[in-house]
Protein backbone atom coordinates (compact mmCIF):
# COMPACT_ATOMS: atom_id res chain seq x y z
CA UNK A 1 0.00 0.00 0.00
CA UNK A 2 1.29 3.46 -0.81
CA UNK A 3 0.73 6.58 1.19
CA UNK A 4 -1.37 9.33 -0.36
CA UNK A 5 0.48 11.95 1.61
CA UNK A 6 2.34 14.24 -0.74
CA UNK A 7 3.87 17.51 0.34
CA UNK A 8 2.09 20.59 -1.02
CA UNK A 9 3.73 22.13 -4.11
CA UNK A 10 6.12 24.99 -3.45
CA UNK A 11 4.31 28.29 -3.43
CA UNK A 12 5.22 30.73 -6.16
CA UNK A 13 4.68 34.36 -5.56
CA UNK A 14 1.75 35.47 -7.65
CA UNK A 15 2.63 37.93 -10.33
CA UNK A 16 1.43 41.44 -9.51
CA UNK A 17 -1.30 42.90 -11.61
CA UNK A 18 -0.64 46.56 -12.23
CA UNK A 19 -3.27 49.07 -13.22
CA UNK A 20 -6.11 48.37 -10.86
CA UNK A 21 -5.43 50.97 -8.22
CA UNK A 22 -2.57 53.24 -7.25
CA UNK A 23 -2.21 51.79 -3.78
CA UNK A 24 -2.06 48.24 -5.05
CA UNK A 25 0.54 49.32 -7.59
CA UNK A 26 2.63 50.88 -4.89
CA UNK A 27 2.39 47.80 -2.70
CA UNK A 28 3.30 45.54 -5.59
CA UNK A 29 6.26 47.66 -6.59
CA UNK A 30 7.66 47.78 -3.07
CA UNK A 31 7.30 44.01 -2.77
CA UNK A 32 8.90 43.42 -6.15
CA UNK A 33 11.80 45.68 -5.24
CA UNK A 34 12.77 43.35 -2.42
CA UNK A 35 11.69 40.12 -4.06
CA UNK A 36 13.28 40.30 -7.50
CA UNK A 37 16.97 40.10 -6.50
CA UNK A 38 16.26 37.14 -4.24
CA UNK A 39 14.33 35.29 -6.96
CA UNK A 40 17.05 36.09 -9.53
CA UNK A 41 19.76 34.78 -7.18
CA UNK A 42 17.86 31.57 -6.59
CA UNK A 43 17.06 30.88 -10.22
CA UNK A 44 20.43 31.67 -11.72
CA UNK A 45 22.94 30.64 -9.04
CA UNK A 46 21.29 28.30 -6.60
CA UNK A 47 19.04 25.93 -8.50
CA UNK A 48 21.33 24.98 -11.44
CA UNK A 49 24.21 24.04 -9.14
CA UNK A 50 22.19 21.63 -7.03
CA UNK A 51 21.86 17.91 -7.51
CA UNK A 52 18.51 16.37 -6.77
CA UNK A 53 18.48 13.55 -4.24
CA UNK A 54 15.76 11.86 -2.25
CA UNK A 55 14.63 11.44 1.31
CA UNK A 56 11.91 9.10 2.49
CA UNK A 57 9.36 8.65 5.23
CA UNK A 58 10.20 5.67 7.36
CA UNK A 59 7.67 2.86 7.41
CA UNK A 60 7.48 0.79 10.59
CA UNK A 61 6.02 -2.72 10.28
CA UNK A 62 3.33 -3.60 12.81
CA UNK A 63 4.39 -5.91 15.62
CA UNK A 64 2.40 -7.64 18.36
CA UNK A 65 0.40 -5.44 20.68
CA UNK A 66 0.68 -5.71 24.45
CA UNK A 67 -2.48 -7.83 24.74
CA UNK A 68 -0.93 -10.50 22.54
CA UNK A 69 2.30 -10.80 24.54
CA UNK A 70 2.90 -13.36 27.24
CA UNK A 71 4.06 -12.00 30.55
CA UNK A 72 7.54 -13.49 30.39
CA UNK A 73 8.26 -12.43 26.79
CA UNK A 74 10.28 -9.35 27.58
CA UNK A 75 11.21 -8.66 23.96
CA UNK A 76 7.56 -8.71 22.89
CA UNK A 77 6.74 -6.21 25.66
CA UNK A 78 9.61 -3.94 24.58
CA UNK A 79 8.48 -3.92 20.97
CA UNK A 80 4.87 -3.30 21.99
CA UNK A 81 6.03 -0.35 24.09
CA UNK A 82 7.97 1.17 21.20
CA UNK A 83 4.99 0.71 18.91
CA UNK A 84 2.74 2.35 21.49
CA UNK A 85 5.04 5.38 21.67
CA UNK A 86 5.05 5.70 17.87
CA UNK A 87 1.26 5.40 17.75
CA UNK A 88 0.98 8.11 20.36
CA UNK A 89 3.02 10.48 18.20
CA UNK A 90 0.79 9.75 15.22
CA UNK A 91 -2.38 10.24 17.26
CA UNK A 92 -1.04 13.52 18.62
CA UNK A 93 -0.60 14.78 15.06
CA UNK A 94 -4.05 13.58 14.02
CA UNK A 95 -5.64 15.39 16.96
CA UNK A 96 -3.66 18.54 16.10
CA UNK A 97 -4.94 18.48 12.52
CA UNK A 98 -8.54 18.10 13.64
CA UNK A 99 -8.12 20.95 16.06
CA UNK A 100 -6.57 23.20 13.41
CA UNK A 101 -9.47 22.51 11.07
CA UNK A 102 -11.97 23.42 13.76
CA UNK A 103 -10.04 26.56 14.67
CA UNK A 104 -9.75 27.70 11.06
CA UNK A 105 -13.43 27.14 10.48
CA UNK A 106 -14.37 29.09 13.60
CA UNK A 107 -11.99 31.89 12.73
CA UNK A 108 -13.39 32.29 9.22
CA UNK A 109 -17.07 31.80 9.94
CA UNK A 110 -17.33 33.88 13.06
CA UNK A 111 -20.06 34.87 14.18
CA UNK A 112 -21.89 32.12 12.29
CA UNK A 113 -19.49 29.44 13.45
CA UNK A 114 -21.93 27.56 15.68
CA UNK A 115 -24.04 25.86 13.00
CA UNK A 116 -21.42 25.81 10.25
CA UNK A 117 -18.52 24.29 12.21
CA UNK A 118 -20.64 21.96 14.31
CA UNK A 119 -19.52 18.77 12.55
CA UNK A 120 -15.84 19.65 12.82
CA UNK A 121 -16.28 20.46 16.48
CA UNK A 122 -18.03 17.17 17.15
CA UNK A 123 -15.29 15.27 15.32
CA UNK A 124 -12.61 16.98 17.35
CA UNK A 125 -14.35 16.47 20.68
CA UNK A 126 -14.90 12.79 19.99
CA UNK A 127 -11.30 12.34 18.94
CA UNK A 128 -10.06 14.23 22.01
CA UNK A 129 -12.16 12.02 24.29
CA UNK A 130 -10.81 8.90 22.63
CA UNK A 131 -7.26 10.21 22.87
CA UNK A 132 -7.75 10.87 26.56
CA UNK A 133 -9.13 7.43 27.24
CA UNK A 134 -6.13 5.86 25.52
CA UNK A 135 -3.16 8.11 26.32
CA UNK A 136 -4.31 10.62 28.92
CA UNK A 137 -2.97 10.93 32.45
CA UNK A 138 -0.13 8.51 31.90
CA UNK A 139 2.65 10.94 32.80
CA UNK A 140 6.06 11.59 31.30
CA UNK A 141 7.59 8.12 31.69
CA UNK A 142 4.77 5.89 30.57
CA UNK A 143 4.72 2.23 29.65
CA UNK A 144 2.26 0.37 27.51
CA UNK A 145 1.51 -1.91 30.46
CA UNK A 146 0.10 1.05 32.38
CA UNK A 147 -2.05 2.02 29.41
CA UNK A 148 -3.28 -1.57 29.18
CA UNK A 149 -4.16 -1.62 32.86
CA UNK A 150 -5.93 1.72 32.41
CA UNK A 151 -8.07 0.13 29.72
CA UNK A 152 -8.81 -2.80 31.99
CA UNK A 153 -9.89 -0.48 34.82
CA UNK A 154 -12.09 1.50 32.47
CA UNK A 155 -13.81 -1.66 31.26
CA UNK A 156 -14.37 -2.79 34.85
CA UNK A 157 -15.81 0.60 35.72
CA UNK A 158 -18.09 0.42 32.71
CA UNK A 159 -19.20 -3.03 33.72
CA UNK A 160 -20.11 -1.86 37.19
CA UNK A 161 -21.53 1.58 36.51
CA UNK A 162 -22.58 1.58 32.89
CA UNK A 163 -21.25 3.61 29.97
CA UNK A 164 -18.93 6.48 30.74
CA UNK A 165 -20.84 9.72 30.92
CA UNK A 166 -23.93 8.27 32.63
CA UNK A 167 -22.62 8.70 36.17
CA UNK A 168 -21.63 6.41 39.01
CA UNK A 169 -24.04 4.04 40.70
CA UNK A 170 -24.40 4.21 44.45
CA UNK A 171 -23.89 0.47 44.94
CA UNK A 172 -21.54 -0.81 42.26
CA UNK A 173 -21.47 -4.37 43.55
CA UNK A 174 -25.18 -4.97 43.37
CA UNK A 175 -26.10 -8.09 41.48
CA UNK A 176 -27.76 -7.20 38.21
CA UNK A 177 -28.27 -9.14 35.05
CA UNK A 178 -25.57 -8.11 32.61
CA UNK A 179 -26.82 -6.28 29.57
CA UNK A 180 -24.18 -7.72 27.20
Amino acid at each position, binding site marked *: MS*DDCQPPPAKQFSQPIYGRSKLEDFNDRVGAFFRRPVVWFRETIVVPNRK*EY*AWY*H*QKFPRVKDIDQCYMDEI*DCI*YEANEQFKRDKLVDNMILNLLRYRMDDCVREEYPDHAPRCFQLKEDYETAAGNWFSRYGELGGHYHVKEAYMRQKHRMLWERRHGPIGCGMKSDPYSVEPESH
Partner: protein
Amino acid sequence: MRGLRPVTTFQAVSATAKMISPTVPFRSIATSLVRKGGHDRIMTITPSRYNWQQYKDQLHFYIFLGVIPLSVLVFLVNVFVGPATLQEIPEGYTPKHYEYSPHPVTRFLARYYYWNPQENYERNLHYIKEQDEIRKMRLMTWKVRDLMRDRGDYPNFFMTKGIHGKYMQHLIKEWDDNKFFHRGD
Protein backbone atom coordinates in the same frame (compact mmCIF):
# COMPACT_ATOMS: atom_id res chain seq x y z
CA MET B 1 61.33 50.29 51.58
CA ARG B 2 61.27 49.22 47.97
CA GLY B 3 58.20 48.31 46.04
CA LEU B 4 54.91 49.88 45.27
CA ARG B 5 52.67 51.36 47.86
CA PRO B 6 49.00 52.03 47.29
CA VAL B 7 48.83 55.80 47.06
CA THR B 8 45.91 57.93 46.01
CA THR B 9 46.95 61.59 46.08
CA PHE B 10 49.53 63.34 43.96
CA GLN B 11 51.40 64.76 46.92
CA ALA B 12 51.56 61.41 48.61
CA VAL B 13 52.97 59.90 45.44
CA SER B 14 55.66 62.49 44.98
CA ALA B 15 56.53 62.34 48.67
CA THR B 16 56.98 58.63 48.58
CA ALA B 17 58.87 58.85 45.34
CA LYS B 18 61.49 60.93 47.14
CA MET B 19 61.71 58.52 50.05
CA ILE B 20 62.25 55.42 47.91
CA SER B 21 65.66 54.49 46.60
CA PRO B 22 66.50 56.26 43.33
CA THR B 23 67.78 53.14 41.53
CA VAL B 24 64.31 52.31 40.24
CA PRO B 25 62.49 55.58 40.15
CA PHE B 26 58.82 55.74 39.37
CA ARG B 27 56.59 58.65 38.83
CA SER B 28 52.89 59.17 38.74
CA ILE B 29 50.97 59.17 35.50
CA ALA B 30 50.76 62.95 35.34
CA THR B 31 54.52 63.49 35.30
CA SER B 32 55.44 60.51 33.18
CA LEU B 33 53.00 61.39 30.40
CA VAL B 34 54.58 64.79 30.04
CA ARG B 35 58.17 63.61 29.94
CA LYS B 36 58.66 60.71 27.61
CA GLY B 37 61.84 59.50 26.01
CA GLY B 38 65.30 59.94 27.38
CA HIS B 39 67.30 57.31 29.14
CA ASP B 40 65.30 57.00 32.30
CA ARG B 41 63.83 53.69 33.18
CA ILE B 42 60.36 54.66 34.11
CA MET B 43 57.67 52.42 35.48
CA THR B 44 54.28 53.88 34.77
CA ILE B 45 51.41 53.21 37.09
CA THR B 46 48.37 52.49 34.95
CA PRO B 47 45.13 50.72 35.75
CA SER B 48 44.88 47.16 34.56
CA ARG B 49 44.11 46.62 30.88
CA TYR B 50 43.72 42.88 31.34
CA ASN B 51 39.95 42.74 30.93
CA TRP B 52 39.97 44.84 27.77
CA GLN B 53 42.72 42.74 26.23
CA GLN B 54 40.98 39.50 27.16
CA TYR B 55 37.77 40.80 25.64
CA LYS B 56 39.52 41.66 22.39
CA ASP B 57 41.22 38.28 22.29
CA GLN B 58 38.03 36.34 22.84
CA LEU B 59 36.07 38.48 20.40
CA HIS B 60 38.59 37.81 17.66
CA PHE B 61 38.82 34.14 18.53
CA TYR B 62 35.10 33.46 18.42
CA ILE B 63 34.46 35.55 15.32
CA PHE B 64 37.37 34.45 13.14
CA LEU B 65 37.37 30.80 14.16
CA GLY B 66 33.70 30.30 14.95
CA VAL B 67 31.26 32.70 13.36
CA ILE B 68 32.92 33.24 9.99
CA PRO B 69 33.89 29.66 9.06
CA LEU B 70 30.57 28.25 10.22
CA SER B 71 28.58 30.92 8.42
CA VAL B 72 30.50 30.32 5.20
CA LEU B 73 30.01 26.57 5.56
CA VAL B 74 26.29 26.88 6.26
CA PHE B 75 25.83 29.27 3.36
CA LEU B 76 27.64 27.01 0.92
CA VAL B 77 25.81 23.90 2.09
CA ASN B 78 22.39 25.51 1.93
CA VAL B 79 22.99 27.20 -1.43
CA PHE B 80 24.99 24.64 -3.39
CA VAL B 81 23.95 21.30 -1.87
CA GLY B 82 20.41 22.02 -0.81
CA PRO B 83 17.75 19.93 0.90
CA ALA B 84 16.42 16.65 -0.48
CA THR B 85 13.05 16.09 -2.16
CA LEU B 86 10.48 13.78 -0.63
CA GLN B 87 9.85 10.66 -2.66
CA GLU B 88 8.20 7.28 -2.36
CA ILE B 89 10.37 4.38 -1.31
CA PRO B 90 11.17 2.35 -4.44
CA GLU B 91 10.18 -1.30 -4.55
CA GLY B 92 12.63 -3.69 -2.97
CA TYR B 93 14.91 -0.93 -1.67
CA THR B 94 15.62 -0.32 2.02
CA PRO B 95 16.73 3.26 2.56
CA LYS B 96 19.75 3.86 4.74
CA HIS B 97 19.06 5.40 8.11
CA TYR B 98 20.46 8.77 7.10
CA GLU B 99 18.16 8.98 4.09
CA TYR B 100 15.23 9.72 6.38
CA SER B 101 16.26 13.37 6.94
CA PRO B 102 15.95 16.16 4.37
CA HIS B 103 18.69 18.60 5.32
CA PRO B 104 22.29 17.78 4.24
CA VAL B 105 23.81 18.67 7.61
CA THR B 106 21.46 16.35 9.52
CA ARG B 107 22.13 13.68 6.92
CA PHE B 108 25.86 14.09 7.47
CA LEU B 109 25.54 13.89 11.25
CA ALA B 110 23.16 10.94 11.07
CA ARG B 111 25.56 9.14 8.78
CA TYR B 112 28.86 9.77 10.50
CA TYR B 113 28.10 10.72 14.07
CA TYR B 114 24.82 9.49 15.47
CA TRP B 115 23.98 5.85 15.92
CA ASN B 116 21.62 4.05 13.60
CA PRO B 117 18.21 3.92 15.32
CA GLN B 118 17.36 0.53 13.86
CA GLU B 119 20.65 -0.96 15.00
CA ASN B 120 20.25 0.61 18.45
CA TYR B 121 16.72 -0.78 18.74
CA GLU B 122 17.81 -4.28 17.85
CA ARG B 123 20.83 -4.20 20.12
CA ASN B 124 18.67 -3.06 23.03
CA LEU B 125 16.24 -5.86 22.29
CA HIS B 126 19.03 -8.43 22.29
CA TYR B 127 20.48 -7.11 25.55
CA ILE B 128 17.10 -7.17 27.27
CA LYS B 129 16.39 -10.69 26.04
CA GLU B 130 19.76 -11.98 27.20
CA GLN B 131 19.44 -10.39 30.65
CA ASP B 132 15.95 -11.83 30.94
CA GLU B 133 17.23 -15.31 30.17
CA ILE B 134 19.98 -14.92 32.79
CA ARG B 135 17.34 -13.82 35.28
CA LYS B 136 15.17 -16.83 34.53
CA MET B 137 18.12 -19.16 34.96
CA ARG B 138 18.94 -17.59 38.31
CA LEU B 139 15.35 -17.90 39.53
CA MET B 140 15.32 -21.55 38.56
CA THR B 141 18.67 -22.14 40.27
CA TRP B 142 17.41 -20.60 43.51
CA LYS B 143 14.20 -22.59 43.38
CA VAL B 144 16.08 -25.84 42.85
CA ARG B 145 18.48 -24.99 45.66
CA ASP B 146 15.60 -24.24 48.04
CA LEU B 147 13.93 -27.48 47.17
CA MET B 148 17.15 -29.38 47.73
CA ARG B 149 17.56 -27.69 51.08
CA ASP B 150 14.05 -28.60 52.11
CA ARG B 151 13.97 -32.14 50.86
CA GLY B 152 17.59 -33.06 51.53
CA ASP B 153 17.61 -35.67 48.81
CA TYR B 154 20.49 -34.31 46.69
CA PRO B 155 24.02 -33.76 48.03
CA ASN B 156 24.63 -30.79 45.75
CA PHE B 157 24.23 -27.65 47.81
CA PHE B 158 23.95 -28.87 51.35
CA MET B 159 25.75 -31.75 52.97
CA THR B 160 23.38 -33.53 55.30
CA LYS B 161 24.55 -36.46 57.36
CA GLY B 162 22.62 -39.63 57.24
CA ILE B 163 21.05 -41.36 54.32
CA HIS B 164 22.53 -40.75 50.90
CA GLY B 165 20.26 -38.77 48.62
CA LYS B 166 19.54 -41.52 46.15
CA TYR B 167 18.20 -43.79 48.91
CA MET B 168 16.23 -40.85 50.24
CA GLN B 169 14.36 -40.55 46.96
CA HIS B 170 13.29 -44.20 47.13
CA LEU B 171 12.16 -43.73 50.72
CA ILE B 172 10.18 -40.64 49.84
CA LYS B 173 8.52 -42.52 47.00
CA GLU B 174 7.56 -45.32 49.39
CA TRP B 175 6.27 -42.87 51.95
CA ASP B 176 4.28 -41.02 49.35
CA ASP B 177 2.77 -44.23 48.09
CA ASN B 178 1.82 -45.23 51.61
CA LYS B 179 0.88 -41.66 52.52
CA PHE B 180 2.77 -41.86 55.84
CA PHE B 181 4.84 -38.76 55.52
CA HIS B 182 4.67 -35.78 53.18
CA ARG B 183 7.62 -33.49 52.86
CA GLY B 184 6.76 -29.83 52.53
CA ASP B 185 7.12 -28.43 49.06
